[in-house]
C-alpha cells in the first residue's frame, strides 16, 4: 500500500514531466518555424548587374615599353572608388592572362581597395566636389610578392595603373600605393612605392638613332 503523500508527490512529478515534454515540443516547433521563415526571406531573384560602360585601359607591353589605350565594355558601379577598383581589376586580369604582353600574376583580386581623396597641395580644399583627386590604391601583398622583378616591368605596372585611373577618372591627378594597407618601399625591389605619382608622367619609348 503506497502512502498517500508518496502518491501525491508521484502525481505532481508525472504532471511536471508531461508539462515539460509539451513545452520542449512547442519550443522545437517554434525554432523549426523560425528556421523555415529565415530560409524563405533569402533572395531568390538574381542581383541586378550594373550597366556595361566603356572603360579605357592603358595596357602595357614589355617588348617595347609601350602603353596603348584599349577600350573595354565593363559593368561598372556608380560609386567612383568601387568603379576605379573594378577597372583596375580588369586591367590586372589582362596582365594575368596566359598570353599577356606584360605578364603579372594576380588578376582581379589584387586590388583590395581604391580610396579617392582631395589631392595633396592642390589648394582646392574648398572645391572638394570638382577639384583634383589623390587615388590611394591598396594592393594585395600576394600581388607584390609575385610581381616579376625589374625596373621596366615594375615601372610599367605603376604607370599603367596611374594612366588607367586618369583615363577613366580625369580628376585623379595623383596616385599613391599601399600593399596590404601598409607603405612598402618598392613594388618588387625596384619601383619606389613611397612617393606620390603624378598621372601625367611620361611613358617609356623605344630608343632610336638621333
Amino acid at each position, binding site marked *: 500500500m503506497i502512502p498517500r503523500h508518496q502518491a501525491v508527490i508521484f502525481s505532481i512529478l508525472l504532471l511536471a514531466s508531461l508539462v515539460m515534454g509539451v513545452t520542449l515540443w512547442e519550443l522545437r516547433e517554434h525554432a523549426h518555424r523560425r528556421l523555415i521563415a529565415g530560409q524563405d526571406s533569402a533572395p531568390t531573384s538574381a542581383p541586378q548587374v550594373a550597366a556595361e560602360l566603356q572603360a579605357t585601359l592603358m595596357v602595357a607591353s614589355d617588348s617595347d615599353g609601350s602603353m596603348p589605350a584599349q577600350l573595354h565594355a565593363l559593368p561598372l558601379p556608380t560609386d567612383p572608388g568601387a568603379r576605379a577598383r573594378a577597372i583596375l581589376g580588369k586591367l590586372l586580369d589582362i596582365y594575368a592572362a596566359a598570353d599577356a604582353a606584360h605578364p603579372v600574376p594576380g588578376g582581379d583580386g589584387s586590388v583590395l581597395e581604391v580610396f579617392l581623396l582631395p589631392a595633396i597641395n592642390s589648394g582646392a580644399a574648398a572645391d572638394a566636389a570638382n577639384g583634383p583627386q589623390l587615388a590611394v590604391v591598396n594592393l594585395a601583398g600576394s600581388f607584390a610578392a609575385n610581381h616579376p622583378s*625589374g*625596373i*621596366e616591368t615594375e615601372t610599367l605596372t605603376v604607370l599603367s595603373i596611374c594612366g588607367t585611373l586618369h583615363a577613366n577618372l580625369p580628376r585623379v591627378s595623383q596616385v599613391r600605393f599601399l600593399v596590404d594597407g601598409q607603405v612598402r*618601399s618598392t613594388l618588387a625591389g*625596384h619601383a619606389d612605392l613611397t612617393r606620390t605619382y603624378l598621372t601625367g608622367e611620361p611613358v617609356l*619609348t623605344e*630608343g632610336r*638613332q638621333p
Partner: protein
Amino acid sequence: MRWSKLGFAAFTMSWLGGASLLAQQAPAAPQARFVVVLDAAHGGDDSGGRLLNGQPEKAFTLAMSVRLRSLLAVRGIQVVTTRESDQTVEAERRAEITNHAAAQACLSLHATESGLGIHLFASSLAPSANAGGGVRFLAWKTAQSAWVTRSVALEGDLNSALLHAGMSVTLGRSSLPVLDSLTCPAVAVEIAPEMSSDKTVAAELDDPGYQARVAEALAAAIVEWRTEAARAEAHP
C-alpha cells in the same frame, strides 16, 4: 690675464680657421679627374630578381660591374664601385658612396628576364630650378632633380652607343630609391635578353658574348661622355 690669453688663442684660431675657409673658397685649378661610379644593384640579403638560369640578379650585376670597371680602367677612367662582393649595401649607403665620389657619371646596373634589349632609365623627378649643382642643401629623396637634365643627356649617349652596337634600347624615366638621391648624372641600366630583328630572344643573359658587347658599348658611351665633358670644360 688668463682670459685674455684664451681670447687671443680663440682669435688666432678663428683667424686661422677663416684663412683656411678662404683657401677652400679660392678658385680651384681645373680638375682633370673624371670619376665614374658603378653601382651593382642588390647584393647580400637582397638577391634582386631571379634570372632564367637560376642565377640571382645580384650576381649578374656584380659580374657586369667588374667587367665594366676593367674596361673603363683600361681607358684611363677612375672608377668607384658601391660593392665589390656579395654584400648587403643599403640604398642610402650607395647614394652616400656615389655622392662623396663627386662623380661625373653613375651607372646603376640591373638585370631582368622581363622584356628584351637594354632598358635605360633616368630619374622621373622634374628638373629643379637649381640645376647645375649651385645649391648647398638638397632634399635627400629628390637630390637628383638638380641633375636630371644631365642624366637625360647621359641616357642619350648610352642610347647612341648601344644602338651603334646593334642592340635594341628602351628609354624611360623611373623612380628608384638610389637614383633619386644621387648628386651626379645618373642612369639605371637594366639588361634584358638580347632582341633579334623578329622580336625574339637572340641571346640570353648568360651569353658571355652578349655581356661583353653590352659592357663594350657602355664603356664607349662613357668615353664619349668624358669627351663631351672635356669639350664643355674647354669651351664653357
